[in-house]
């Protein structure tokens, strides 16, 4: 299984994982990437930044496990997941998921699957800073529903 996960405070490049996942391979026919960014509106309209906390150790293990579950369900060639922690401002990329497969459908679905489970299982917590003060972000019911679409194992 070619799965790689990374957690870091520093910004990551928009090319993250691409070259390394594809190096020396010609059996990959589709690469799907998802990038999540910090919005300037969320629970309040004027978000100035957010602080992301995580549970070191468990975070990496959970993301690897989600990647492995995707690997079991679809025929994949590479999975790369990178997630930032610490202080971020609107416009900053928070997360990037890259999935490579022989065919596009598998890559699209696996990428969607990984994001749904990342949002509902990986131990990250966002505290938003806004012009009205700071608060911890609440879980969203829609995220739980999104994850439930895939059926529980």
């Amino acid at each position: 299984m070619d799965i790689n996960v990374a957690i870091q405070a520093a910004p990551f490049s928009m090319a993250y994982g691409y070259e390394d996942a594809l190096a020396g391979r010609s059996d990959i026919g589709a690469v799907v990437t998802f990038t999540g960014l910090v919005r300037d509106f969320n629970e309040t309209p004027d978000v100035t930044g957010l602080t992301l906390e995580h549970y070191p150790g468990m975070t990496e293990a959970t993301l690897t496990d989600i990647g492995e579950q995707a690997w079991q369900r679809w025929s994949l060639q590479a999975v790369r997941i990178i997630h930032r922690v610490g202080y971020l401002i609107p416009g900053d990329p928070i997360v990037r998921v890259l999935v490579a497969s022989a065919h596009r459908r598998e890559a699209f679905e696996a990428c969607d699957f990984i994001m749904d489970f990342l949002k509902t299982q990986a131990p990250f917590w966002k505290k938003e800073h806004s012009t009205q003060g700071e608060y911890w972000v609440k879980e969203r019911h829609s995220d739980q529903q999104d994850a439930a679409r895939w059926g529980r194992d």
Partner: protein
Amino acid sequence: MPLTHLNMRGEANMVDVGDKQETRREAIASGRIVMQPETLKLLSDGGLPKGDVLATARIAGIQAAKRTHELIPLCHSLALSKVSVEFEIDLAESCVNVVALCRLNGRTGVEMEALTAVSVACLTLYDMCKAVDKSMCIEAIQLDSKEGGQRGDYQRMSVQAPIVTGDGMAGEVSLGERCPSPCVRIKFLAELRERLGESEALVSLDELASRDIGGLKTALAQRDSRFKLLTEQRTLCAINQVMANDDALVTDDDEVAFFPPVTGG
């Protein structure tokens, strides 16, 4: 304590240091410039168009320290006996850390000189790299320590970033202090930690009516009513970093974490 650069009428004024004793003064300041990983690689490989970036920034920092009095209105001109500017390339954080030390035997402190050296060294790094990266960010310019002078020594407390809830690596469980008797080590994370005002706790297995997560919650609530939060609001739990429910058993030396629903991505 009054601000020494204001006179009795509240106007800016240069402090007369003529009567102060000459003593050995030293100050260390630091800061950093965060950049894209590709920029940092070009910098460390010497691949940037303006040439040797660090050597240039070092000279700039030293020159700036000597000219601090020209920049900061009420600073005295000082005959510094030593100025050093050092750089550390941090690949993990994708930044260059800058540390400046200034020293002299004199009547006034040298913290403004050290801070100026760091600031100008960072600005020079920005100037040398801006052709390839405009998103660089100069941050955390601060006084780390100072020695000598009337107000005595100062040492900055090292502040831990709030994201640290443990120091484990992937697949590894951090070992804190071992319990004197069989017990579990508990962590409270994120909003739960803030609401409880508590980040860690030890609970002896003997305190548990049932040796599972449910029993642990009950024992904590008996210890202090604040811990009723664990059952009153939706709280998730992990044993040794694996998600667990109320029926999951706990054994000696387990790491149990309680936390709110996750909100990453």
